[in-house]
């Protein structure tokens, strides 16, 4: 192979390398963007059942007296957490549009002061965008001294445009220990 065509070949390889590196940067950037994209996507569609993590605004679209939706309350504590955590009411029938308040009771059964946070999950997931938390203990950490008992509320409204085929929602809270500031 003469040196001229070899040189054009090497230039070609160099050009290919540049745009392959560019492609690689593209896939790296895409990877980095995947996490925020996922969060935004989930928040818009509610498909991971997490709902919104701050107080939402009341919707005054009227109360649908004809419809009854059962809201179930489920609580659990993360593995290894020595706290007691329960809902005072296990389920409640509500009309879409109504505002309700539910109480939860937590007690630190350990011997030291501890801090915990409840992480909510709503299922079926497509209901999560219709379940509005106007006030929730899950927005903040709870700190309890040894043996201390605390009753905490959640104030919620189910939007009256909840899809027709949904008759029962489950609101599940998992209590996780919190460390750090």
């Amino acid at each position, binding site marked *: *192979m003469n*040196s001229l065509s*070899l*040189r054009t*070949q*090497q*230039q*070609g*390889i*160099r050009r*290919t*390398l540049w745009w*392959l*590196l560019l*492609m*690689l940067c593209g*896939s*790296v950037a*895409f*990877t*980095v963007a*995947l*996490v925020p994209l*996922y969060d935004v996507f*989930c928040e818009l*569609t509610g*498909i*991971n*059942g*997490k709902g919104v*993590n701050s107080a939402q605004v009341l919707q005054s679209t009227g109360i649908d007296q004809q419809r009854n939706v059962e809201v179930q309350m489920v609580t659990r504590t*993360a593995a290894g957490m020595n706290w007691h955590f329960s809902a005072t009411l296990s389920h409640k029938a509500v009309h879409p549009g109504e505002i309700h308040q539910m109480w939860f009771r937590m007690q630190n059964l350990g011997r030291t002061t501890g801090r915990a*946070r409840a*992480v909510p999950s709503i*299922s*079926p*997931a*497509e209901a999560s965008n219709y379940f509005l938390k106007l006030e929730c203990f899950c927005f903040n950490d709870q700190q309890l001294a040894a043996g201390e008992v605390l009753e905490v509320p959640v104030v919620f409204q189910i939007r009256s445009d909840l899809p027709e085929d949904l008759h029962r929602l489950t609101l599940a809270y*998992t209590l*996780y*220990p*919190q460390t*750090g500031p």
Partner: protein
Amino acid sequence: MTSNSYSSATEHAHEPQLRGLKRWLLTTNHKEIGTLYLIFSLTMFFIGGTMALVIRAELFQPGLQLVQPEFFNQMTTMHGLIMVFGAVMPAFVGLANWMVPLQIGAPDMALPRLNNFSFWLLPLAFSLLLSSLFMEGGGPNFGWTFYAPLSTTYAPPSTNFFILSIHLAGISSILGAINIIATILNMRTPAMKLMDMPLFVWTWLITAFLLLAVMPVLAGVVTMMLLDINFGTSFFNAAGGGDPVLFQHLFWFFGHPEVYIMILPAFGIASMIVPAFARKRLFGYRSMVYATASIAILSFVVWAHHMFTVGLPLAAQLFFMYATMLIAVPTGVKVFNWVATLFHGSISFEVPMLFTLAFIVQFTIGGLSGVMLAIVPADYQYHDTYFVVAHFHYVLVPGAVFAIIAGVYYWLPKWTGYYPDETLGRWHFWLSVIGVNLTFFPMHFSGLAGMPRRIPDYALQFADFNLLSSLGGFLFGLSQLLLVWVVVRCVRGGKPAPDNPWEGAEGLEWTVPSPAPLHTFSTPPEFIPERDSPSRA
């Protein structure tokens, strides 16, 4: 790059010939690096295979006999990781190193030094990974899919080494892919257009792009794990506002294209061997190329079929179900083309052809169980059972591994200058076919009957199927020693092979002497598309 590096592809021809260990450590020759990759892959195949036999020995009968559940989990995890990243992928890269330059008439790979570096990353990565087995708390035990939080919150302390080794293997794959693309796009002999390339080259070109697209995602996932474990972030930790399901989305966004990375080059090998032994040109060359490209593109939009049971919305389940089924169309085109190539051919059944025909049949079985798994309501039943294990082993072992072995038998005469022993090869083939089907076919039934994956003990009603699988596993595993024997004998001597050892084989690799000298095609070979192109009329 320095100004005189344009001659880098050929300059090593003038370097003094190094000897011994140094020669292999420092080699930049595509044939020697190809050999290194293949030897490495074979070693990993036996290490991962030994782990599989530990698993099968434990599952030989119900109850806990040989190993503790904790160790059993490490065996399933390591077996998967080693076979995927250490055996199958490097075997294809090794074949690409050896054959791509020979098939396109190039003197070497485009970046020979980088080539050396990408190979030597692998032994490092896998020594690290294997060493974690001996660390406090044991090696990875969370399954080869390393789902969080199993692999973060509940992982053994050695997980950081696992993460590092995945990073190293990933970098090796990315560099290898870059090298292969640069070679194929720039170093073809003049007159060889893209549509004149052998299909092994085509499938590898597409595979290399897949690697470039998804390996960074894998690197991203393990980096997030690293941050979650060591630096208190909460990407996958629900307690801190993260989402464990995100892990599965990211992992399978890498994972599904990864399964095609492990099968597309196998399609390429089959598309070389079927025409050679049917003594006909490949039927539907163009449709083969388009089918490969469509499979690659579709592979990006089907990942959630691994996650039907996490609670996806109905619309998403439907989308991923139909998209997955759609892949059966281009795959069917390929199988159709191979069969059409066989049709009216004058077929002879040398060992490479036997392995290729078995590949086509057995891969199709694996493809069909894949379509069954794509059906959402059926998947609820099959999920995490041995049916899934049967499915992916059918596409990977009687599928990809058989194609690799077929390629080895097909190209061995070119590598060593001798034919592989035909009688031993036949023994190897028949024992492998019987062993592999005896291992994996009963798993369909134990899975349908409800036996879950990744358990060291099981209910009595699965005993008979497991007994068969274990017997088959040992038969298949031990018969691979025959492969080693065949290869060693073939290196030492045998029936001398001419330049083109197979009557119907076509391609530039058969125009160089057997064994191929260290340096070939220092001047580009003559290539007349009307006479030499696999796509000619």
